[in-house]
């Protein structure tokens, strides 16, 4: 798939932008703090309905628009809301049609004491949608250097990565995830109450069932996704390292549905577990039993201890855990392998090529990997890249690309000689 048009209003430092986007490669260039990353952030928002830079979404709304709205509120004038708007037109090569996707972030006053509320509205082809139903229509793969945190950071980073990626691919994933998260919150509140004040433990039953129902879906999808991603990533990694490293992605679910006799005996790392034959219903049943077993302990601790909210995934190169022992270079290459694998996996799963978004990635790679990545980008349907330094790219690559200049929140598409 590819974008044909992008328009932004009051998004970050971009007051207004209206651009036809060509296929193939767009290079956004300019000094720091001009708005390059913000353009990618806006596009990625249409795929994930979340920012890759912040969880405080009100930061995305242009500060001038926010203060103008606050001023109007004080003066009791009209125009007391601030709106950031992202509108894209894209072509879907799966259904062969043009679509229009719009996100509005609306900051509006509430209550008597200068309260504010942020509302997120999503319209697909002009029809209002729930975020959970809108996800998966426009696909993008994002690559920024900070993403080495997926490999080196805490388990939260890996779960977040899985969630954002899988939601784009499996219809229903986003919905199951929010239902699961909500059920966990309710269940934890109940466990806390039971641990502090005692009471009828059978009250847990409805929440156990909800947890097992939605949690089993997440586990089932993660099993498939990680296995398929691993296959692609291993292939790419073999090529990028010229056969020097074997890359593995190991799923380590907190509730593990696979019966593993002698689990403690074998070294976890060296014994890949194949869980791909498991049915969702089996996982649900096993998870429910596990929750029943864990009940006394969970009541004592007042918190849910097993389930996909505690899942882990590890990256291994030649059987060495990269999170713990990977060198900078190894981690960067593994990340590149993962990202390219993600593109291929999405293609296979959805029948659509995701739009590639690369933010300042070249500076972090050595010459050989740069060439590998650029060769890959060259062959893709649409890619938007940012850089402060055009010299990182080969002259041929720059010549073939659309080079756009970003300055002070304005994008200039014409080269000024």
């Amino acid at each position, binding site marked *: 798939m590819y974008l044909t048009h992008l328009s932004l209003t009051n998004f970050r430092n971009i007051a207004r932008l209206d651009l036809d986007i060509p296929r193939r490669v767009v290079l956004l260039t300019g000094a720091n703090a001009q708005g390059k990353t913000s353009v990618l952030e806006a596009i990625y928002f249409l795929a994930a309905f979340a920012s890759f830079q912040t969880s405080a979404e009100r930061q995305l709304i242009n500060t001038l628009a926010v203060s103008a709205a606050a001023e109007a509120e004080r003066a*009791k004038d009209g125009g007391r809301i601030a709106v950031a708007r992202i509108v894209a037109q894209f072509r879907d090569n799966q259904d062969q049609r043009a679509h229009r996707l719009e996100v509005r972030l609306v900051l509006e*006053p*509430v*209550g*008597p004491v200068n309260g504010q509320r942020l509302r997120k509205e999503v319209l697909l082809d002009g029809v209002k949608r729930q975020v959970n139903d809108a996800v998966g229509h426009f696909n993008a793969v994002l690559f920024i250097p900070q993403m080495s945190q997926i490999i080196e950071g805490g388990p939260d980073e890996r779960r977040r990565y899985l969630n954002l990626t899988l939601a784009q691919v499996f219809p229903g994933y986003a919905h199951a995830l929010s*239902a699961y998260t*909500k*059920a966990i*919150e*309710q*269940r934890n*509140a*109940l466990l806390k*109450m039971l641990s502090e004040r005692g*009471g*009828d433990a059978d*009250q847990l*039953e*409805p*929440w156990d*069932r*909800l947890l097992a129902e939605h949690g089993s879906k997440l586990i089932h999808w993660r099993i498939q996704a990680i296995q398929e991603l691993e296959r692609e990533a291993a292939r790419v990694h073999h090529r990028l390292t010229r056969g020097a490293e074997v890359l593995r992605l190991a799923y380590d679910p907190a509730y593990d549905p696979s019966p593993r006799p002698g689990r403690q005996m074998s070294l976890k790392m060296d014994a890949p577990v194949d869980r791909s034959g498991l049915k969702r219903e089996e996982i649900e049943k096993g998870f429910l039993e596990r929750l029943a077993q864990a009940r006394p302990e969970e009541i004592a601790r007042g918190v849910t201890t097993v389930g996909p909210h505690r899942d882990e995934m590890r990256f291994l190169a030649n059987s060495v855990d990269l999170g713990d022992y990977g060198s900078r270079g190894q981690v960067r290459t593994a990340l590149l392998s993962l990202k390219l694998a993600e593109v291929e996996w999405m293609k296979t799963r959805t029948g659509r090529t995701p739009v590639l978004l690369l933010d300042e990635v070249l500076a972090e790679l050595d010459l050989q990997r740069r060439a590998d990545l650029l060769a890959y980008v060259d062959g893709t349907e649409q890619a938007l890249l940012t850089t402060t330094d055009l010299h990182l790219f080969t002259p041929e690559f720059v010549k073939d690309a659309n080079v756009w200049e970003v300055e002070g929140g304005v994008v200039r598409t014409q080269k000024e000689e």
Partner: protein
Amino acid sequence: MLPEPIQNLIFALERLPGIGPKTASRLAFYLLRAPEEISGSLAEALTDLKTKIAFCQECFNITVAGRERCEICESGQRDGSVICVVEEPLDILSIERIGAYQGKYHVLQGVINPIEGIGPDDLKIRPLLERIRRGGVLEVILATDPTMEGDATAQYLHPRLKALGVHVTRLARGLPVGGDLEYADQNTLLRALSGRQEMG
């Protein structure tokens, strides 16, 4: 600064759902200028709300104060062998509007919601179980909203009702998930009611 009585009224109105500061001021100044009779009858209605309305001791629907039981519970026309369990009195209104249901009701006055500290004992669940123990009930229809909390409440009730030997059914899917019974259109509600299924 406004005189205290008008300021108080504005603050009181602002606390109502759906009313912002602007609407609250507009309403307050309207009442200030309007004939005595308008603000008088409003004040009376508000006082009556708390003094003249009570809850039915059988089904916990709203009824006129001084009455033990509501009209539906007292009616000889209604089939006492079926009880439809709802969250709020307004849900009864929605179901009554479609005019197809002949059984009786039971209002839980909420749903289980641990985050808000609401457990089974905070709802009218015990009186429901007692009502069924007294006999004569064959079917209980669980008509809580199709939200997570509504479903959890139905799940909680299911085995406890089953143990008393009654059929337990749940409104058919088709109501918008996460939706509110009160706002469901009549056709959808009728379909959900007639297509209700035995809970497994």
